[in-house]
């Protein structure tokens, strides 16, 4: 019976959906739209020119699927839009409208005041308000930037299903296609015509992918084909991408001859380091000179997206983007006899993955690598205040491509572990009988843990810093009596923070009892949701250690009634310890939390949530005192 009902439902859906919408009910589940068909064809005409043609038919079932009725086509000086066509149809397959060229908006894709980019986007929209409806888009772009070949990610939006999608690459005979498949059921099909080698992928019936907390990046989970050139040419610069080495050689071509400094500047720099022998000190001098004479402004037009401004331009104008400033710093170091290497990297706290065995243009930032006797010193040339040699969460712990004279070479940047990223605190809290208190708090932040304070010190005025403290100190009611930050620059920079706080009713007094939560200001107050069954691996990407030592001086006349247990948990994700000791009127609380980064099997997620909940519970523990009867 139940089965019949199910069938009936399907039939009814079919009937309701009408002629164009006979969708598979499995695809409809959890989806706001179904991509009925998408055909993407990339035709390579020559090493310097290619065309991408896309045709897509999407059925939109409710308002949450309306994003699919909008088409965004990015373009710039090297990528032209040949045409965009679009038509929408109602639930009965009757045409609603065709897109007019005048309805296509063309807007700038850059917005910040310190950016001048030629990236623009064409936006076409066919949104309709009666569901379901169908939109059909067809567009073609021609690129003369063959550094990039397209990626194919058929399921690239959430709550969407794909009935059928295909990707085809047409290579002229004699030109090689490089590709990388991931999460695909069916591998490539290959054949040849008289003029072309053909590569084709097809996929069907993809259902919506739902993310999970602490899941790996979606790009790891989705079906995908990445493609890249072998021989290519951009604006007359010819290159090959078969190896990292070859790609580096191409970058060398672009940078060729751009590192020439005016003689006057060279002389100035040489005078500046005269008498200094220590190379680190020399680097610091030059880096300081960079930081006080230049600033980051992103002007990237056409080939300027890959080719730096000449060092002499930066020298006379005092600004440039990451490429220009790195190239300039390299030239300056050269002038004082220190060789360094221009290096491509992915900047950002989440953008770490580089497919190391698939050489291709996977980077968005440039930094400078200075080889030292023992190790490597990395310089971030776009910052006016960063410590020399600190990569931190922006470029640390990932792959960078060194552009050496011999070509590209992939290396790892500096890693920061739980031992490097430390927040360590010592506080003394003096309580009075009414529960108010004065606290002296000293905290040392190192490595990645120092970054928030670093930014606050450099970007906020004292008044705003004080407001920031009020927002970020988590104590129920307090006033900041005084504060100071002391930044010590270095390869492992640190900030020492001193706070004097007056706490209002920090302990709770109920009748003759006094309740003290000894964790002063570092309590965990959320626990992630335990989602039950889990599909994907668990990824924790931050590693740090927190140590809190808090010493309370209790008012006279109270006797201990209850002391919480000591806790100690050690798991694969981290370790936690807390301990309360009482000595006369002095209560000492010590809490140590170390979180490690790692990648774990899906099954362990529940254990991680349980560990986090244990920490949460331990942080809530109270010490209870009773007024001594006298």
């Amino acid at each position, binding site marked *: 019976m139940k089965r019949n009902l199910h069938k009936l439902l399907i039939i009814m859906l079919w009937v309701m959906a009408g002629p164009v919408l006979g969708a598979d009910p499995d695809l409809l589940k959890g989806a706001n739209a179904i991509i009925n068909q998408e055909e993407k064809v990339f035709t390579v005409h020559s090493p310097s020119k290619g065309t991408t043609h896309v045709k897509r038919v999407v059925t939109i079932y409710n308002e949450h699927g309306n994003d699919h009725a909008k088409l965004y086509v990015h373009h710039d000086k090297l990528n032209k839009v040949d045409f965009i066509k679009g038509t929408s149809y109602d639930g009965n397959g009757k045409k609603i409208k065709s897109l007019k060229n005048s309805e296509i908006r063309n807007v700038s894709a850059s917005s910040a005041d310190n950016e001048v980019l030629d990236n623009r986007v064409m936006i076409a929209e066919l949104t309709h*308000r009666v569901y379901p409806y169908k939109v059909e888009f067809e567009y073609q772009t021609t690129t003369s930037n063959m550094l990039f070949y397209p990626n194919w990610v058929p399921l690239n939006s959430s709550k969407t299903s794909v009935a059928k999608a295909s990707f085809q690459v047409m290579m002229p005979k004699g030109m090689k296609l490089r590709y990388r498949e991931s999460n695909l059921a069916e591998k490539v099909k290959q054949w040849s015509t008289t003029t072309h080698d053909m590569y084709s992928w097809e996929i069907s019936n993809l259902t919506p992918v739902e993310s999970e907390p602490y899941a790996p990046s979606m790009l790891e989970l989705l079906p995908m084909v990445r493609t890249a050139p072998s021989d290519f040419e951009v604006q007359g610069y010819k290159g090959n991408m078969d190896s990292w080495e070859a790609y580096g050689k191409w970058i060398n071509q672009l940078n060729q001859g751009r590192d020439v400094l005016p003689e006057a500047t060279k002389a100035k720099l040489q005078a500046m380091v005269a008498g200094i022998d220590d190379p680190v000190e020399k680097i610091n001098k030059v880096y300081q000179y960079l930081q006080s004479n230049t600033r980051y402004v992103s002007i990237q037009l056409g080939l300027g997206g890959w080719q730096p401004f000449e060092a002499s331009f930066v020298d006379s104008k005092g600004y440039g983007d990451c490429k220009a400033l790195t190239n300039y710093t390299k030239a300056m170091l050269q002038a004082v006899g220190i060789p360094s290497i221009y290096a491509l990297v992915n900047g950002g706290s989440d953008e770490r993955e580089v497919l190391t065995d698939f050489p291709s243009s996977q980077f968005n930032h440039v930094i400078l690598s200075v080889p030292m006797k023992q190790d490597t010193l990395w310089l971030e040339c776009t910052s006016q205040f960063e410590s020399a040699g600190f990569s931190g969460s922006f470029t640390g712990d990932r792959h960078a491509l060194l552009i050496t004279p011999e070509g590209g070479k992939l290396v790892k940047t500096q890693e920061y572990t739980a031992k490097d990223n430390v927040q360590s605190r010592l506080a003394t809290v003096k309580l009075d009988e009414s529960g108010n208190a004065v606290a002296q708090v000293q905290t040392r932040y190192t490595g990645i843990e120092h970054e928030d304070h670093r930014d606050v010190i450099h970007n906020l005025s004292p008044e705003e810093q004080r407001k920031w403290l009020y927002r970020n100190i988590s104590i129920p*009611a307090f006033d900041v009596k005084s504060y100071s930050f002391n930044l010590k620059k270095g390869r492992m920079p640190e900030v020492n923070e001193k706070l004097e706080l007056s706490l209002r009713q920090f302990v709770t007094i*109920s009748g003759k009892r006094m*309740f003290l939560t000894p964790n002063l200001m570092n309590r965990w107050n959320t626990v992630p949701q335990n989602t039950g069954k889990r599909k994907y691996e668990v990824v924790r990407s931050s590693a740090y250690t927190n140590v809190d030592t808090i010493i309370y001086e209790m008012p006279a006349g109270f006797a201990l009634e209850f002391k919480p247990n000591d806790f100690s948990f050690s798991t694969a994700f981290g370790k936690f310890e807390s301990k309360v000791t009482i000595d006369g009127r002095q209560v000492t609380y010590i809490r140590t939390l170390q979180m490690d980064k790692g990648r774990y099997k899906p099954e362990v997620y529940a254990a991680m949530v349980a560990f986090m909940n244990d920490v949460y519970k331990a942080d809530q523990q109270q010490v209870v005192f009773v007024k001594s009867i006298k």
Partner: protein
Amino acid sequence: MKLQTSTLFFSLVLLLGTGLSRGYAQDQPAKFGKVDEETLKMRVYDQDTSAAAVVLSDHGYSYFTYNKGFKVVFERHTRIKVLKKSGYDVANISVPYYQRNSKKESVYSIKGFTYNQEGGKVTKDKLESKAVFDEQTNENWFAKKFTMPNVKEGSVIEYSYTITSDFLYNLREWEFQSTIPVAYSEYNVRIPEYFHYKQEQQGYLRFDESTKTKSKDSFTVVWSSNITPGMGGGRTSGGSGQVEASSDTYRWVIRNAPALRPEKYITTLRDYQSKIDFELQTVKYPNELPQVMTGNWDDVTKDLLMAEKFGSQLNRKGFFKAEIAAITAKHTNPEQQMIAIHNLVKSSVKWNNKYGYYTSGPIRKAFENRSGSVADINLMLTAMLQDAGLNAGPVLVSTREHGRVPQGSPMLNKFNYVIAHVKLGDKEYLLDATDPLLPAGMLPVRCLNGQGRLIKKDDQRWVALTPTGKLTKFFNGELTINPNGGLTGTVTESSAGYNALSIRRTILEDGKEKFAEKISKEVGNYKVEKPEFKNVEDLNQTLSVHYSLSASGNSQPVDVIYLNPMLGQGETENPFKLEERLYPVDLAVPIDYTYVIKFVIPEGYEIEESPKGAIISLPEDGGKFMYMVQREGNVLQIMSKINMLKPVYFAPEYPYLKEFYNQIVAKHAEQIVLKKISSN
């Protein structure tokens, strides 16, 4: 000559004459291209030692020219001292400009210098014209972007530019205050007698100077030869002549304006900024009747009611006749009719997130497309209400983000929204159909901003946009305490007003299933299970969520049980932490949070300690906190009620607010202590 004047203005080409004196009034502290050494040496701005940069001087001048129609010319010269690296942003400048159809603004004569002092020498770097980039932001908006060369700590930068504009309606406004301090800001406006602008000033600062002088402007008029087509047409020869107009020149100066800093609980920072704004009221050319652009509310109301994209839409009733007839046939009570019409609009047209009080086209089109702007939707609602015979009219509104509306004579550009007003007997309602979750009579928070203007022929006035609902939450728990210190029981959380609105929105976005999953979780010792919802769809009823709550205790009975009776639900941090407050605290909506929690004490235990009751009030009935503890047999009941009665508290009330919440936080942290009765 005189005879010719009016013709000149309307059929010939008029060029700006050389006679117009362009220099502005007496003092001009900054001379372009020159900066004194003292300014370069300065390392700290005395009035605000924390400033990362300071605007040394900012001069603006607006005046008129004529070239195939009147144009406004705006000249600006700005000089800024950079004090810290965090102030470098001031050296990246973006000048937005606008174009629509054939009308346009253009930016030209961009000039700039950066001055530095190096080793006792003053260096001067020119902004090169190839460093000025033109960018199209979207179809109507463009920007000239430029970046100043060689900016360092201690640099002085200056730049100037000119904008000509075909858009006379909004003479360029002037902001005397910025997010960095402004040492000197001056605006000059020279307006020929043909134009009358209304001026609107706002902010917490006073003008140091404010003058108005009269003068004569002499225009040299040049007209070219012209061919008039058709009957009686022919060629007229070109020529030139003089036109004289008297002008008013205004000058405003503010010195030492402090930096504008954002705070929590405000409408928009722009409301607190010192600035001056203009709106064209009338245009009167020589020998012509004056054209009223806007003016008194009588005329504005009349004009709006005739406007194609406003009042005239209220008369296009044909397309919904059948629907309204069905509603009036079904409901006889006017209030029910109103609710039914509101529901009809909400369910048939979806808001496209566009603001404005003019419709985007005929409202019929929005009805057919099932999608429209605020004006499309709410003017359609008004038209339908009127069609049903209800006494309804549109109300112009400015949203909180858009800022305050000055009262007095009308400035239409201060509004950006429209809602519907209904009067049934003595009762008045404000309706907005852009949000399907809003019941009739309740406004979205964005609209709770002072007063709106009712646009009705026979009943035009300001109406207060006060919230009809509160942020209402009622937490009702019944729990049994176990001898091991754990808890089991049930909780019902009921919400009304703006609290219900926000929960309904979450449920709509997540779906009921996801939302239930979100609620059911384990945090610390507490575990929420089996949530059930009531009245999710019925907007006029109280929304409630019922669930079971448990807390794990020890593995065995304990002698003393400690328990926070607020179950971790109370206020744990004071929302008002800062010592001082400059602006009013604008909560938008009153707050009403009630907790009633009953505990059954386990047998064999007695209450050793329980919190004391308390009542705390804010001055002038601004708010009240009540905390009561009652005991009946083995049941202990805790009641906590927080009432914030006013949507807006003024800055002097801030210390009271802060203390009020301190007390609540402290009370909510208090504990119950149960003790095992000793067997002997």
